[in-house]
């Protein structure tokens, strides 16, 4: 299946996929010609494209999977919300920036080095930790539950 993959050439995310057209009532080649005339960066690609987890290798003009940022140290039980119990999450990718959300609100963020992200709390709830490493690494999302019952 041929898709049209529109991507960004701009820093800081060259190759970031902006849009995928996987079917059109008109021939893909015809659409590609219009995009070329408009100066819109794109490629015609045969195969499945996952907009969030793939990127375009601009030099080779092919779609590649974005490497995963694997997070280790994820507990298999809730964190005890006593301010003492502590976990440390380690991303595999370098230069990772972490944002921590609770109920949709950003409550903390920091650049994580080799020490990883330490998390302890006195407040029960679900903490969503979002790890962003330099492109083309994928975004990693970890949910941590904190409970007095843990």
């Amino acid at each position, binding site marked *: 299946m041929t*898709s049209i993959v529109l991507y960004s050439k701009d820093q800081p995310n060259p190759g*970031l*996929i*902006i*849009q*995928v*057209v*996987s*079917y*059109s*009532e*008109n021939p893909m080649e*015809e*659409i590609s010609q*219009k995009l070329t005339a408009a100066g819109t960066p794109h490629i015609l690609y045969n195969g499945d*494209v996952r*907009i*969030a987890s793939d990127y375009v290798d601009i030099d080779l003009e092919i779609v590649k999977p974005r490497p995963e940022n694997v997070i280790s140290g994820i507990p298999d039980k809730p964190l005890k919300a006593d301010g003492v119990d502590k976990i440390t999450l380690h991303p595999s990718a370098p230069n990772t920036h972490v*944002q921590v*959300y609770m109920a*949709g*609100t*950003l409550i903390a963020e920091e650049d994580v080095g080799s020490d990883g992200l330490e998390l302890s709390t006195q407040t029960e709830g679900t903490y*969503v930790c*979002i790890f962003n490493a330099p492109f083309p690494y994928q*975004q990693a*999302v970890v949910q941590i539950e904190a409970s007095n019952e843990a």
Partner: protein
Amino acid sequence: MTVPRVLFQGGSGTTLRVSLPGVDVTTADIDHLVFNSSYSGLSIVQKGSVSCSVRGSAGISWSTPQEHIPWVLWRCKFSYETLYRGPYIYKGLNNTNDYIMATATTSGMSFSVYEPGVDLGCIIDYVAFKATEPP
């Protein structure tokens, strides 16, 4: 007993219907039809995915301008969520709520998403179907 399973009718009530085996097509309801020309008009204009920044918007264009505003089925997934929201079905101007909006025209469609307190983007999957009449 043999029953008629194919109905091809002209005139003002033009229709083509095919019923399930053993069911009389002239009396079959919709649950007992395998084909009904009255419901076969949806053809796909375009389908795909687009990324949208929260507090921003994303636009797509139909490959050719449409005579009528297409029907659009779409869903979205925020970066911090594992499940999609939706699907949403629109014909023309419409909103689902204050924060997830879409506007379709004969030339394309724009999406805008706002999640309070969240600056993360989302992914939108869509399918646009050809409309045969104005909204």
